[in-house]
């Protein structure tokens, strides 16, 4: 069962969501990554980030509240070590990118795609704790459009541009339309839901608790923009969850927080969908 987004064919409709697959080797014992639709990296920034203070993740009923502070090795180290590891294993890699300025997003899109290897870029427009991380505020559609267009200009032809949006049903249709008009090949619906850690720090809530919110986003955007490829993301833990997103209009799904509870989840869902 292959999946097509634009001109790009993926091995299947199940991808690993940003920030939940480590850098690849950690997940590899539990899933043949090359048989999945793709692997989205944790968000890469231009310079390395060590991550934030502890605790970084806290349990909530059927959910995880996370404020990790985007720990990542920076673009150069990612290109030197993490990307080659994935490419050697024939994994379809999407680099998630996050930046503190428009220029940083554009620079990342250019830097990461100068050499061949990536299948696409996922522009993270929806970090639930964006302000605390110093990331560009893209709540305003005008800003978001400019940012997506800037990344599009830097991408070589043939690379997919995914834009990851907030799972905010009141605004998601407008945000998806903006991203599509600015050049996105597909939108990812959505990210962790903005939440707070018990001590009040800004964070994001992921896991089964948010599944229905993401599903609503997919249904609403599909109704308004039936030709735009959608990738469902939020609370997907079982093959039935994935089927519900595909039935609501998603072309593919991403599995995230569920991998932190059971690292075989993505592989199991992919195998199950492949048999249907």
């Amino acid at each position: 069962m292959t999946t097509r987004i634009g001109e790009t064919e993926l091995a299947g409709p199940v991808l690993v969501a940003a920030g939940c697959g480590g850098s690849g080797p950690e997940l590899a014992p539990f899933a043949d990554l090359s048989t999945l639709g793709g692997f989205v990296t944790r968000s890469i920034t231009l310079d390395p980030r060590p991550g934030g203070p502890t605790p970084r993740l806290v349990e909530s009923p059927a959910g995880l509240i996370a404020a990790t502070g985007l720990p990542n090795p920076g673009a150069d180290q990612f290109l030197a070590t993490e990307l080659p590891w994935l490419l050697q294993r024939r994994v379809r890699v999407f680099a998630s990118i996050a930046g503190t300025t428009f220029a940083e997003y554009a620079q990342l899109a250019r830097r990461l795609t100068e050499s061949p290897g990536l299948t696409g870029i996922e522009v993270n427009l929806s970090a639930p704790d964006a302000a605390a991380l110093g990331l560009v505020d893209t709540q305003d559609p005008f800003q978001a459009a400019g940012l997506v267009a800037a990344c599009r200009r830097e991408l070589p032809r043939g690379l997919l541009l995914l834009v990851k949006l907030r799972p905010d049903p009141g605004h998601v249709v407008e945000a998806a339309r903006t991203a599509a008009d600015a050049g996105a090949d597909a939108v990812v619906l959505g990210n962790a839901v903005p939440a707070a850690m018990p001590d009040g720090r800004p964070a994001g809530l992921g896991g089964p608790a948010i599944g229905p919110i993401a599903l609503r986003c997919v249904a609403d955007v599909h109704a308004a923009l039936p030709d735009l490829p959608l990738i469902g993301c939020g609370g997907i833990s079982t093959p039935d969850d994935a089927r519900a997103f595909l039935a609501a209009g998603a072309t593919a799904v991403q599995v995230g927080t569920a991998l932190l509870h059971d690292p075989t989840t993505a592989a199991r869902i992919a195998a199950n969908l492949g048999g249907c």
Partner: protein
Amino acid sequence: MVTPVSETRGPVHITGEVLSARRVGGYRHLTLAAPGLPERFRPGNFVAVSVGETRLSRRAFWIHRARPTGGYGATVDLVVAETGFGGRWLATRTQGAPVELTGPLGRPFALPKEPVSCVLVGEGYAAATLFPLAERLRERGCVVTMLLAAPDESHLLSALDARRTARSVLVVTEDGSVGRSGAVRDVIGDVLTRAAAEVVYAAGPARTLHDVAAAAELHGAWSQTALERPLTCATGLCHGCPVPVLGEHGAARLARACYDGPVFRGDRVRWADLAAWDSGHSEAAG
């Protein structure tokens, strides 16, 4: 020192089954059917357990014993403290209960190439990880001294079992209910000197590991500390268990307790920074 690499690589994710559960002092000892785990096991590894559908964080437990074959097939033994939701959940599983687990996880203890004198220091349930290590060291011809510590007798793992493998076993309890009265830091220097230790292994609370690492450094011995941190995924995916360490060239960086550890060289952990985090002075990590 070499970190052993098992022939059968990588952890597995399985549904195990409780074969027996019994109370030993203040802890529960569980034997679980765990196909695929024992042949991959190295001392210092742990398992991550799922404790219910709606609790997403995994709970980590040291592997106390791993048997690839036996009357019940492949099994692992865990020592469970009934603290927190996860510990209580696992401690109340009865014979026949399914348990979803992932393992063996983490970087194991590095073993000396030569048959040298080794001191193993374990406090409370964490000492569980040292028993299979002691066996492995003895097989390599090392002289093994064990120092077992606990708040009281009921939280002390079996000194009798330890004596089967170790040349000598010393016991300290905080309340003096068995062995010497006191803590690891009161006796560790003396133990290292008398054993002429070249390698020290430790498992227990961070402050005890810090004491042991400091004593080892003073004594001129290598130290290997098995660090226990609150985990979320336990597989290296979530970056939720940072440990402040010094890298190869002395540069400060953050390692993951579950994936880069849980065993760290004692002289590589920035113990003071770790203690500061835990006392609530957590700043953007460096």
